[in-house]
């Protein structure tokens, strides 16, 4: 049983829905006669046939064998200490932002600092510099520091500027 000319033409033209096209494709995969007929219906068949194969570099197989036998490049695994250090650095950076911009409205400053810290943490995560656990720890520490700094700032504000609301 072979594919009818009209169906084959519609197949080559891409005029069949996916399901019917898949059925025809399964038949063509196992029927060389229909596959050949389909190939001759392809408008660009001559153009495809005209294209020569790229020339394979003669030394490529040898180069591949050499590369296979070369020792693999060692992957530097970050240590727990390094990850914690980075997480603390992120938290410190967030805290520093608060200190440096402490004159603005407290809520905005804290939010900006938190966003900065979070961005840095997610950036580090996306670069695989830190493990998710270390990043979360860093963010938690950062949040705790922000809260502590906010409380200190409020306290200092009350002490040194009693008239300010």
């Amino acid at each position, binding site marked *: 049983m072979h594919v009818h000319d009209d169906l084959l033409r519609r197949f080559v033209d891409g005029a069949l829905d*996916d399901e019917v*096209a*898949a059925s025809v*494709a*399964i038949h063509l995969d196992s029927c060389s006669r229909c596959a050949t007929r389909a190939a001759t219906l392809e*408008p*660009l068949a001559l153009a495809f046939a005209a294209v*020569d194969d790229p020339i394979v570099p003669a030394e490529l197989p040898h180069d*591949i064998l050499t590369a296979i036998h070369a020792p693999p490049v060692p992957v530097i695994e970050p240590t727990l200490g390094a990850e914690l250090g980075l997480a603390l650095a992120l938290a410190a950076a967030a805290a520093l932002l608060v200190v440096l911009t402490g004159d603005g409205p407290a809520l905005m400053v804290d939010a900006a600092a938190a966003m900065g810290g979070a961005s840095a943490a997610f950036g580090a995560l996306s670069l695989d510099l830190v493990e998710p656990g270390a990043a979360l720890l860093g963010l938690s520490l950062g949040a705790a520091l922000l809260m502590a700094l906010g409380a200190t700032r409020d306290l200092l504000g009350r002490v040194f500027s009693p008239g300010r609301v």
Partner: protein
Amino acid sequence: MIQRYTPSVYRFCARMLRDDEDARDAAQNTLVKVIRNLHRYDPERKFSTWVFGIARNTAIDEQRRRRFTTELGDRDLADTRSSPLEETSRQERAERLHEALGQLPPMYREVLVLYHFEHFKYQEIAETLELPLGTVMNRIFRARRRLRELYEAAELPEAPGVHGVVAGAGG
């Protein structure tokens, strides 16, 4: 295995990346990955589709890493075995197709390269790309349609060799 798969993997990478140096790197990386990950090969799957799946991913990585601009040289397309006039026409078709293929998005180019140049069966392409056959067929149809449009519209690059052959035949 290296001897067997190097030519086809290189050809695939060359047609996908259109740069011989990038193709060389991608082919080498592909076969190194294949050898080093043989223990991950699922025998239920056809070996060539597994290899070309790796080749395809490696070519995509290579493409991302380096933005390619260099075209493969004329030496990859020219093969003078027929008469000069026939050759001109043949070479023109080849260059037109080469040009049109180069303008296709990689997702369309890869299915056409696997089918028309590497002679994969449709189901093998689906297995290589890890996609349902219906999706692959849809992609192939869209790719062919787009390729025909680009082929018709393709402006041929200046090919001094062609003019030289024709001029020589006429004189």
